[in-house]
């Protein structure tokens, strides 16, 4: 599933070198395929490919529709499309907010807003997640923007993990889904903050800067704010949106292929059931604003197992892994996602044993 994204030409000196060039002569970056100035040579580009593809699909529309006519494939298509439709508003608002951070909020703001010491910045950033009402799709580009603006990666990652789980909308949904069990809401909020802060600190101790490969983005330093803003929106929508589509396809596949009966076979075993629901949260990739209702419906499982579902879901799932690989690089995603999964499942288990 890996798609080589950032090419081979990027070195650690890339952005530095570019920054130097901009101060000398402010210029506008252009895509390399448009490079030759003067009269353009016509060749088959992506717009032409896109046009031909669309014409073909419109021509063979009935055949395509027939292909996906079976009940299974049609259910798959419905789930795939609805995950995308549901996530699009959050993705777009997250992308716009991240463009505002990247272009309009000065670097000095973050230096003032967060504690100087990284170890203190991590819990502050986790708690800041409370104010971002949205689900996890929007928080990935925002975390990328924060890092780019000089926020310490550990704090940006803590924000990335906490924001989708502790905001008021998600906690309200959890309260509605678990009537008469306010401890689920409290444990979800507290547990998510513990995991986010813990992962931030873990990153400070063990994380290596070279794992995160934020692509150089000279377009963000464009002297025209408007051009930089829209370039940031375009870039994030295409990247995060593409990976979101990959993740939505994976989630739809799981939704259709894994029957509920399999799950129920493990529901009665205490340890296995916690693991099973943690894995299910990863596979189903349900939006954090809806996962509480699904957790509530898995009533054969213990509350501890369902807490694991609620803690893991907003932090690790197929579409998030896919999006993180796109925004931060594959080396980051292959380390960060399993570590977060282990910490979140562990915290859920401990909290469940003590409080549930």
């Amino acid at each position, binding site marked *: 599933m890996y798609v080589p*994204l950032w090419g081979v030409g990027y070195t650690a000196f890339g952005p530095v070198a570019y920054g130097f060039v901009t101060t000398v*002569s402010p210029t506008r970056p252009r895509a390399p395929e448009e490079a030759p100035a003067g009269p353009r040579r016509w060749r088959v580009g992506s717009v032409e490919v896109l046009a031909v593809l669309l014409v073909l699909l419109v021509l063979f529309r009935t055949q395509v529709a027939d292909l996906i006519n079976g009940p299974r494939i049609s259910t798959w298509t419905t789930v795939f499309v609805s995950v995308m439709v549901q996530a699009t*508003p959050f993705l777009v608002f997250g992308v716009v907010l991240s463009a505002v951070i990247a272009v309009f909020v000065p670097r000095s703001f973050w230096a003032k807003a967060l504690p100087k010491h990284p170890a203190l910045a991590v819990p502050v950033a986790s708690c800041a997640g409370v104010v971002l009402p949205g689900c996890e799709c929007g928080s990935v580009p925002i975390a990328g923007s924060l890092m780019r603006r000089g926020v310490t990666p550990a704090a940006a990652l803590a924000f990335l993990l906490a924001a989708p789980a502790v905001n008021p909308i998600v906690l309200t949904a959890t309260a509605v889904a678990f009537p008469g069990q306010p401890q689920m809401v409290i444990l979800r909020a507290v547990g998510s903050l513990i995991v986010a802060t813990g992962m931030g600190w873990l990153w400070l101790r063990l994380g290596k800067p070279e794992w995160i490969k934020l692509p150089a983005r000279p*377009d963000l330093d464009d002297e025209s704010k408007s051009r930089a803003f829209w370039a940031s929106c375009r870039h994030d929508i295409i990247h995060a949106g*593409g990976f979101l589509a990959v993740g939505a396809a994976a989630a739809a596949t799981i939704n259709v292929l894994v029957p509920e*009966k399999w799950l*129920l076979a493990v529901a009665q075993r205490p340890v296995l059931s916690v693991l099973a629901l943690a894995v299910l949260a990863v596979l189903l990739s349900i939006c954090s604003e809806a996962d509480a*209702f699904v957790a509530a419906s898995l009533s054969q499982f213990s509350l501890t197992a369902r807490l694991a579902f609620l803690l893991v879901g907003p932090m690790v799932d197929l579409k998030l892994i896919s999006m993180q690989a796109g925004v931060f690089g594959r080396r980051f995603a292959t380390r960060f996602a399993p570590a977060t999964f282990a910490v979140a499942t562990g915290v859920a288990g401990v909290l469940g044993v003590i409080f549930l």
Partner: protein
Amino acid sequence: MNRQAQAVIMLLLGGAVLKISVGDLYLRYVKEGLRPFLLLSGALLVVAAVMTLWHEYRVPESHASHEHDDHGHAHGGPLVGWMIIAPVLGLLLVAPPAMGAYAAGQSGTALSTAAESDYPPLPPGDVVPITVLDYASRAVFDKGKSLGDRQVKLVGFLVTSTDGKQVLGRMILSCCAADARPIKVAFAGQGPTGMADDSWVEIVGTYTDQTMRDAVNDEIIPYISVVSWRPVDPPKQQYE
């Protein structure tokens, strides 16, 4: 993928989101409450596409030098961006149906989530239209006390449960179709016959204390004593 193609893809995604949310199509996939956000995000996508094209083609001469690499992408944008076309095509060309009998047969009835404590009296009228979820929770958790002998009218689709019998199903939705879960009600007396799964029917009936267990998750499925039934068109809002 170059910037023009990226702009076209954003335009397509925004256009598809606008198209389904201007009409009723979006109700197949998400809750009604998401509509304003869908409209706003679709419009933002279109604006972003237009602004990208605007900056692409309206280049002042002083900015038209091209010595810079587009941040290391060997060939412009990422390949994964092409994946956005898939849901766009799904929406514009196919518009898949709302979740129906296949999904409902795969999952157990989700009645256990509806843990309301008190059930208000039914509204007045000869035949009271209520939701499948309302009937099922009154029948199971309230033991039919608030239903009494009143005739109620339920609308849902037919789904074959694992023991081969057709029951009435209706999907409930909390966020999007990925979390859709079925509520099932079985028929006592003369239930619908000769109808395929996924056909929508309207059932008029009364409470009966008969119940069965869903073979998928062992939850209780209540029965309804059928007085009459008729096939109907699928409702605008197929989820409850």
